C-alpha cells in the first residue's frame, strides 16, 4: 500500500510540472463557460433589416416604428428598387428586407388587403425562418390593434416556461460542457501519460519491478481522477455564480454520477493507451475519435432527433450521451435517482466492460 501511495505522489508531481497542460486543462472549461454563457446564443438578435418604404404613409410609418422598438432588429431605411436587392444581399450588409408598396396605406383602408413583402437571406435557414416569424408577429399585432374585430372568439394561451423561467439561453450547454471537459481531460491526458512512459522506455523498468502492473495504471489514473473532480466542481461553481443557473437537484447525486462518468472516461483512456505506442497517436485518437462523437452525438449542440436514424443508434454507444441526460435531469430538472437509474446502469455497465477489456489487454511483458 505504501508503494502505491509513493507512486501516486510521483504521478502528481508529473502532472503539476507540466504547467502549460495544467493551465489548459483548467482554462478550457472556464473559457467555454464564458463563451457559451455570454457570447454564443442560439437566439436570433440584432437582425440587420433593410426597409424600403415606398408608401411613407401613416400606416407604414406606424409599423416601422413598432419594428424599431422591438429589440430584435437593427433597422436601416433605404429606398432600394427590387433589382438592387440582390446586390445588397451579396454585399452582406443586410439579413432581411421588408418592402412596402407605394399604395400601402390606400389599399389598407379602401380595398381591404394590402401586401407587404419580406425577403430574407436564406443562407442561414433558421435565422430566415425566425425573421419571418418575428416580422409576421409584429405586423399581425399591429393589424389586430388597429383593425381587429372587437367581437369574436378569442382563445388566449398563457405560456409558462418550465425549469427556466428566466429564459437563460445557456442552460442547454452546461451539461454538455461538463461532459466534454471530463471526457477530454480523463481520456486524452490519461492515455497520453501512460503512452509517454512506453515511448520513453521507462515503462519497461516499471514492469520488471516487483510493483504490480495494475498499481501502475491505478497510480496514473488517480491524479486525473482528483483533478477532474476538481474541474467538475469549478464548472459547477461557475455555472451557479457566473451564469446564475439554479441547481435544482441533489448535489451528492450529481457528484456520484460525475465520478462514475470520470471512471468511464479513465477506462477509455486506458484502453486507448493499450492500443498504441506513440503519444501523438494516443492524443489524436482521444481527441478526434472521442471528442467529435461527444460533441455530435450527445445532443447538446445539435438536436439528436433531427439526425438520421443510424446516427441516433450510434449515439447510444457514446457514454457522454447518457451522462448528459443524467446531468440535465438531475441538475436542471431537479429529478431524483428514480428517474436516472436506467442511465446510471448503462453508464456503470459501460465502465465495467471497458475496464475489463483494458486490464485484460494490458501487456505485462513487452
Amino acid at each position, binding site marked *: 500500500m505504501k508503494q502505491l501511495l509513493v507512486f501516486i505522489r510521483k504521478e502528481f508531481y508529473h502532472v503539476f510540472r507540466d504547467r502549460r497542460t495544467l493551465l489548459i486543462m483548467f482554462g478550457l472549461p472556464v473559457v467555454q463557460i464564458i463563451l457559451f454563457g455570454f457570447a454564443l446564443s442560439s*437566439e436570433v438578435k440584432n437582425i440587420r433589416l433593410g426597409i424600403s418604404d415606398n408608401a411613407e404613409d401613416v400606416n407604414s410609418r406606424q409599423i416601422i416604428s413598432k419594428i424599431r422598438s422591438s429589440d430584435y432588429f437593427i433597422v436601416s431605411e433605404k429606398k432600394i428598387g427590387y433589382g438592387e436587392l440582390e446586390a445588397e444581399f451579396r454585399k452582406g450588409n443586410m439579413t432581411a428586407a421588408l418592402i412596402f408598396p407605394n399604395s400601402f396605406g390606400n389599399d389598407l383602408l379602401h380595398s381591404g388587403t394590402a401586401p407587404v413583402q419580406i425577403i430574407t437571406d436564406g443562407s442561414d435557414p433558421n435565422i430566415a425562418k425566425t425573421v419571418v416569424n418575428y416580422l409576421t408577429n409584429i405586423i399581425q399585432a399591429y393589424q389586430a390593434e388597429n383593425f381587429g374585430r372587437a367581437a369574436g372568439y378569442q382563445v388566449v394561451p398563457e405560456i409558462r416556461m418550465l425549469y427556466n423561467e428566466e429564459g437563460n439561453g445557456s442552460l442547454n450547454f452546461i451539461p454538455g460542457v461538463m461532459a466534454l471537459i471530463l471526457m477530454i481531460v480523463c481520456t486524452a491526458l490519461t492515455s497520453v501519460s501512460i503512452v509517454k512512459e512506453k515511448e520513453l522506455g521507462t515503462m519497461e523498468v516499471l514492469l520488471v519491478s516487483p510493483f504490480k502492473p495494475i498499481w501502475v495504471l491505478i497510480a496514473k489514473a488517480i491524479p486525473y481522477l482528483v483533478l477532474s473532480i476538481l474541474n467538475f466542481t469549478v464548472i459547477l461553481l461557475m455555472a451557479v455564480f457566473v451564469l446564475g443557473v439554479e441547481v435544482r437537484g441533489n448535489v451528492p447525486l450529481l457528484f456520484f454520477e460525475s465520478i462514475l462518468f470520470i471512471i468511464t472516461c479513465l477506462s477509455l483512456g486506458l484502453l486507448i493507451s493499450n492500443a498504441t505506442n506513440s503519444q501523438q497517436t494516443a492524443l489524436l485518437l482521444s481527441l478526434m475519435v472521442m471528442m467529435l462523437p461527444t460533441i455530435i452525438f450527445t445532443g447538446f449542440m445539435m438536436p439528436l432527433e433531427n439526425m438520421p436514424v443510424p446516427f441516433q443508434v450510434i449515439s447510444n454507444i457514446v457514454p457522454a450521451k447518457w451522462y448528459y441526460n443524467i446531468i440535465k435531469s438531475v441538475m436542471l430538472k431537479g429529478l431524483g435517482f428514480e428517474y436516472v437509474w436506467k442511465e446510471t446502469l448503462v453508464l456503470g455497465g459501460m465502465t465495467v466492460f471497458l475496464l475489463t477489456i483494458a486490464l485484460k489487454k494490458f501487456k505485462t511483458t513487452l
Partner: protein
Amino acid sequence: MMLVMPVMQLIILPLAMDFDVKFVNLAVVDNDHSTASQKLISTVTASGFFKMKGNASSYKEALQLIQKGQADIILEIPPSFEKNLVRENRQQLALYADAINGTKAGIGSGYLLSVIRSYSLALDIGLKSVPKDASAGAIDITYSNWFNPLGIYRYNIVPAVLVLLLTLIGGYITALNIVREKEMGTIEQINVTPVKKWQFILGKLTPFWIIGMIVFTIGLVISALVYGIVPKGNIFLLYAFAMVYLVGIMGFGLLISTYSSNQVQAMFVAFFFMMIFMLMSGFFTSIDSMPGWAKLISDLTPVTHFIKTDRMIILKGSEWKDVKTEFFYLVAFALFLNSWAILNYRKTN
C-alpha cells in the same frame, strides 16, 4: 488519413448538423372533453408540427412525461372550455414548455400559438356571422427566402465545413511540425546550417500548403457530387481566399510550434485555440447575436472572415467588390502571424 478525414467530415457533419426544429413532442391534457376541445386537439394534430405523445389525464401525469424527457410541451385545456367560450367569448389555455433548450421551447410554443390562432379564427367564421368591417385592414404578408428557398440547412453548413478542413490541416499539422523536430533533436542540425530562418519556415510550409489546397479541392468536389452545392460565384476568387487563409492558419500553427516544447503540448494548445476560433466564428451560432465584446474577438480571428466570405461566394455569388475588405484582412493576418512566427523562432536557444 489526410484524405479520409475530409471525406468523413464532409459527410458526417452536414448530416448530423440540422438545427431545424422539426418535431416537437406534445402532451395534451384535456379537462373538458367537449366538442370544442376535441376540435382544438385535432387541429393541433393535423398541423404536422408536433409528435403527439398521447392524452394525459392530469397535469401531473403530463409533467412526468416532461421529466422523463418524452414530451417538450404540455397543452392543458381547462374544464368548461367550451362553455366559457360560448358564454364569454374568451377562454384561456395553459401551455407549459420545457425551456431548458430555449430555442426549441421558443419555436415549439410559436408553432402552437399560430395553430391556436388559426383555430380561433376558424371558430369565429364557423359559429358567428362575420362582422361587416372584418375584411378591412387585412395585411397580406408574402415572404421569400433568397439563395436558399427551401431552407436547406446543409447549404449553410457545408461551406463552413470546408473552412474547418483547411483549419485542421493548416493549424494542427504545422503546429506539430517544428515541435517534432525539436523533440527529435534534428532541429539542432538545421540550426547550424547557413539556411536563413525565413527560408527554413517557408520550406516547411510549402508541402503542407499544397496538400491543403488539394484537400480543399477534394472538398469542393465532394460538396458538388454529394450535396449538389456548386459555388455560385467566381471560383478563382474562392481559391484566392483559400490560399491566403491557409497561409494565415499555417502561420498560426507555426507560432504555436515555436512556443511549445513537446508535441503533446503543441497539440493541446492548438486544439484549445482552434476550438475557440470555431465556436466564435459563426459556424454554429450567428455572429449578429453576440454581444459587442464577443463580436470584437470574433473579428480578430481569420476563421470568421473566411467562413463569412466562403458562404457569401458559394451561396450568393458575391463578387470581388463585395468581399475585398475581407480579403485584405486575411492578407494582413497571414503576414502578421507568419512574421511573428519567424521572429520568434530562434536558431540558438
